């Protein structure tokens, strides 16, 4: 059985570890004081122990500092015994940093590939989630079963860094879908439409988007749609904005979305889910809160 060493933190890393532990031997290194949980996985205390005996290393951290520290000083990987040392970055890095890191690490015999997971709800990962793979087709062949154990949809995007770039594209549009849905639904509701009518009509019309399909029926039924956090989305959109500025892409709407998410994250807290954004539109638009009246 393949042994996977996973270093990371938070809900996404815990989800990845749990998925992997179903079919692989997994050992985990918590990089953030107790936020990484996985029943059945062996817990280790340092990176060297993680690498020792691991066939593949997965890095899944929401912290840029942790990613930087582990990727810029890869001495710990020398403890690994695998012939080909493959490091899969499932966190969200800056695509250009990933490109340059992959090049540097290849010079010391380490293959860095990026394979970030986009999901708004890990409980429904098979429905509208995907892993975006940046790396060679040969490496993808060798790690595909590992990635598919996390999420059945794996999309090859190009060389190292392309997976991270693709995830930023997807994250930015997904965030826009949701913010646009709240904004437009608030306008409709204040002008006399019911959320239930909008859920039916808009999703059969050209206003359809993935958020309207999930969020509007959930709002009408007072249900949740996501477990991704505001802080995570704000970070994604910030990285997307940085890439846009670097490459000279205006991205007017997504930049507005970035500001909105940062404001919401500051207002409600980084750890609340993106479903809580609905409350902001309700207050800002003068709508009654769900269940009121």
């Amino acid at each position, binding site marked *: 059985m393949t042994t996977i060493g996973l270093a990371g933190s938070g809900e996404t890393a815990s989800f990845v570890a749990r998925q992997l532990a179903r079919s692989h031997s997994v050992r985990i290194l918590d990089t953030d004081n107790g936020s990484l949980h996985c029943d059945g996985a062996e817990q280790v205390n340092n990176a060297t122990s993680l690498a020792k005996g691991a066939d593949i290393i997965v890095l899944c951290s929401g912290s840029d500092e942790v990613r930087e520290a582990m990727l810029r000083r890869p001495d710990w990987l020398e403890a690994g015994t695998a012939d080909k040392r493959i490091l899969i970055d499932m966190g969200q890095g800056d695509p250009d940093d990933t490109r340059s890191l992959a090049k540097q690490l290849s010079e010391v015999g380490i293959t860095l590939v990026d394979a970030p997971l*986009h*999901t*708004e709800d890990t409980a429904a990962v098979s429905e*509208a*989630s*995907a892993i*975006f793979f940046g790396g060679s087709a040969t490496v993808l062949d060798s790690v595909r079963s590992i990635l598919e154990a996390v999420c059945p949809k794996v*999309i*090859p*995007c*190009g060389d190292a860094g*392309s997976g991270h*770039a*693709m995830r930023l594209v*997807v994250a930015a*549009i*997904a965030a*826009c*879908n*949701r*913010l*646009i849905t709240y*904004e*437009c*639904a*608030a*306008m*409709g509701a*204040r*002008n*006399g*439409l*019911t959320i239930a*009518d*909008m859920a039916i*009509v808009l999703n*059969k*019309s*050209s*206003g*359809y*988007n*993935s*958020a*309207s399909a999930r969020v509007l029926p959930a709002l009408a039924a007072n249900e949740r749609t996501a477990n991704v956090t505001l802080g995570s989305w704000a970070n994604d959109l910030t990285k997307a904005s940085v*890439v*846009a500025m670097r490459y*000279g*892409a*205006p*991205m*007017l*709407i*997504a930049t*507005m*979305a970035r500001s*909105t998410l940062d404001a919401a994250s500051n207002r409600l807290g980084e750890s609340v889910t993106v479903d809580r954004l609905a409350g902001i539109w309700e207050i*800002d*638009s*003068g709508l009654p809160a769900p269940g009121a009246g």
Partner: protein
Amino acid sequence: MRVGYIGLGAMGGALARHLIGKFPLSVFDLNQKAVDAFVELGATAAATPAELARNSDVVLLCLPRSSDVEAVLFGPNGVAQGLSSGKIVVDQTSGVPAETRGFARQLEEKGVLLFDAPVSGAMATAIAGTISIIASGPKEAFQRALPVLQSISPNVFHCGERVGNGQTMKTVNNMMNVSCRLATLEVVAMGRKFGLPLEVMTEAINATTARNYTSQGMLPAIAQGRQSTKFWLALQVKDIHQAIGLAAEQRVPMPIGGVARSILQIGLNSLGKEAQLEQMIGVIESMADTKFVDAATNAEFREAK
């Protein structure tokens, strides 16, 4: 049931064609060529909107703006002059809900019921008879006119008895569509600048919560060199101004809608009054100084795949 249709432009003409052969049909339009085409298919040309109304039990209108509806209803030789108690007017214009409610109140004094039933969808769906019809207004009038609407498309929705709700829904739909369209295009432009191929971005977006009407329709069409919309940009700007107006009336903040409106306005000012919505693709490309389709990159990716 005798039916009259006023406004045989691109959308109105496509909708009215479904009524030929199903109802005795009278038509009126300022464009004589459009009228002649319907007469050849068996419709009767009315000399004035008033004459059309006298010869119809149900009068449908599909005009560019609410101001045009007002002129056709209440102007000289207007529809109102030919209406009598019990007749029904169906406004399929993407109009201003409050103004439409005003028209309904005026006609009610004559015993005439008016409801709104704008449509939502691409021109291809209007031609195919699958477009969404979003009606609102008195249930009684809606039920009586329903066979006419269902002849145009089976996808008919009724959004309450308040006249104008259909137009509000259409306006919300337009705003969502335009905002998602422009957001998708501008972010994909960023991806193109990084070097991601359009085809793989389209696959990734459509596999995830990023998917929307644009990613499913316009992005594949761009990759294949096809046109995916046929709509005047000026009318799209008008629709979005209407959405911003509805938001402002109710003091609802629309920061993203406001940015989308500005981008469309820049496009219209740059391209001119005759521009099509489809040309916004080029506007977004030039704003980002990139091209969505790079044959070499796409071919390279397909080969690698």
